[in-house]
């Protein structure tokens, strides 16, 4: 009888070992692996209450409430005292309506499975959607829903269902397989492969290797555009705030130097212009002086040249014994302008001759003009006669009479006054007084 006892103990030990393995897997949420171990544990020892209760918990966690109840009820029957299974059963059955809800969702899943297997996937997806909404830990429903989405090539939605499955049962092999297919179709697999390669790379670092920081993220198109725009803005800011002021200062210095050079040249040119203006003024003065001198020489009336010509005409009149013409010409002569000593001697002889007899000729011409009614001509001759010989009361009187005849009494009275004052004891003075009414 020792052998059966040994076999029982040995089976108990093996069962316990599988239970421990199942417990470890359950603790890391490898529920599929845990359930497998726990089933093996119960195959060796059906009385292993912990293994059966844990198997029931795993069924309950994956949404298999009925399966959990089966294990917990059996466990309670096999060990009626100090069994945690009673508490589990109470939790599920004790709250009103909870078990009924569980029953409805499980039944709905079974209907969806039937519809899916009978080529009615749309209705099945609809049913399964409602099931997982109310019973989010129902792994079978998620798995079937993911498969139906994969069948419609809607890998994103399938991935979402599989993600929830793997949150409950991390090592569910079928879920992992479905997920790998979804990732390969959405491009997610490549991203994760790169991340893994970067995270677990053991190759020796080369000089040109780049260590990407953990915060590094793959840029999408618009992010790249945004980064480029931000980079351009920063570059523009650097250019504006750092480069431009230095460049502007450099240009200002260059311009200032050029400006100072130009100003210096302008000043030099201004000085040259001032000098030229001064010389031009001096030359203009010289020119004016020369022009005045030339004008003085060539002037017909008072010029030196004309005076020489006048003198020549006088000499020609003398030569022709035309003394009256010589007298008339002499009245136009300005002897002071002729500086030549030889000429001055001739002029002196002419002046003496004119003072001796020329003034009378002019007085006679004036008388002839007066008699002819040409009073202007007469006054001119009288004035010329007085120019040659001022001390001549007869000419003064005759000239006053002409003015008196022209009713220019002021001039007439002035001349009458000279006769009366300068020659008081003469007959002319008496006549003058008489004319004036003294």
């Amino acid at each position, binding site marked *: 009888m020792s052998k*059966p006892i040994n076999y*029982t103990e040995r089976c108990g030990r*093996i069962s316990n070992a599988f239970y421990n393995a199942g417990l470890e897997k359950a603790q890391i949420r490898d529920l599929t692996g845990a359930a497998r171990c726990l089933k093996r544990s119960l*195959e*060796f020892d059906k009385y292993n209450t912990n293994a059966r209760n844990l198997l029931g918990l795993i069924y309950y966690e994956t949404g298999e409430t*009925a399966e959990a109840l089966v294990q917990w009820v059996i466990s309670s029957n*096999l060990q009626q005292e100090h069994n945690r299974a009673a508490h589990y059963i109470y939790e599920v059955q004790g709250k009103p309506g909870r078990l009924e809800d569980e029953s409805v969702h499980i039944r709905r899943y079974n209907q969806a499975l039937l519809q899916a297997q009978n080529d009615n996937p749309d209705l099945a997806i609809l049913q399964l959607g409602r099931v997982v909404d109310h019973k989010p830990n129902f792994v079978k429903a998620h798995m079937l829903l993911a*498969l139906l989405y*994969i069948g419609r090539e809607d890998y994103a939605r399938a991935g979402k269902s599989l993600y929830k499955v793997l949150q409950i049962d991390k090592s569910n092999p079928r879920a992992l397989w479905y997920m790998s*297919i979804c990732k390969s179709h959405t491009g997610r697999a490549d991203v994760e492969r790169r991340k893994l390669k970067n995270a677990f790379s053991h190759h020796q670092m080369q000089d040109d290797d780049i260590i990407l920081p953990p915060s590094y993220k793959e840029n999408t198109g618009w992010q790249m555009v945004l980064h480029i725009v931000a980079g351009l803005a920063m570059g523009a800011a650097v250019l504006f705030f750092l480069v431009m002021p230095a460049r502007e200062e450099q240009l200002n210095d260059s311009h200032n130097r050029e400006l100072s050079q130009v100003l210096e040249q302008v000043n030099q040119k201004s000085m040259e212009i001032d000098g030229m203006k001064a010389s031009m003024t001096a030359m203009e003065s010289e020119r004016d002086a020369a022009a005045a001198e030339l004008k003085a020489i060539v002037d017909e009336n008072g010029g030196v040249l004309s005076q020489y010509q006048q003198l020549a005409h006088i000499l020609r009149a003398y030569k022709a014994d035309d003394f009256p013409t010589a007298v008339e010409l002499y009245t136009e002569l300005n002897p002071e302008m002729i500086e030549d000593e030889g000429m001055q001697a001739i002029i002196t002889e002419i002046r003496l001759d004119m003072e001796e007899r020329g003034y009378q000729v002019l007085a006679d011409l004036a008388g002839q003009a007066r008699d002819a009614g040409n009073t202007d001509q007469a006054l001119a001759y009288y004035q010329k006669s007085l120019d040659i010989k001022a001390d001549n009361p007869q000419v003064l009187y005759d000239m006053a009479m002409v003015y008196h005849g022209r009713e220019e009494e002021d001039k007439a009275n002035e001349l009458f006054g000279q006769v009366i004052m300068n020659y008081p004891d003469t007959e002319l003075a008496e006549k003058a007084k008489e004319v004036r009414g003294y």
Partner: protein
Amino acid sequence: MINFEEELSHFKPSLEVEEVEDAIVDSDLTDMADIMMNLIREGSENKKKDE
């Protein structure tokens, strides 16, 4: 690649709450110890018959 039909055939209906009782009754609770005990018992009975 997934063979949709084949995969779908792997899915089995879930045990409904109403079926729990039947499931418990139908449960095969035979474990390795029972099998060994049966083998030992059969071996003892055969030995007695031979004697």
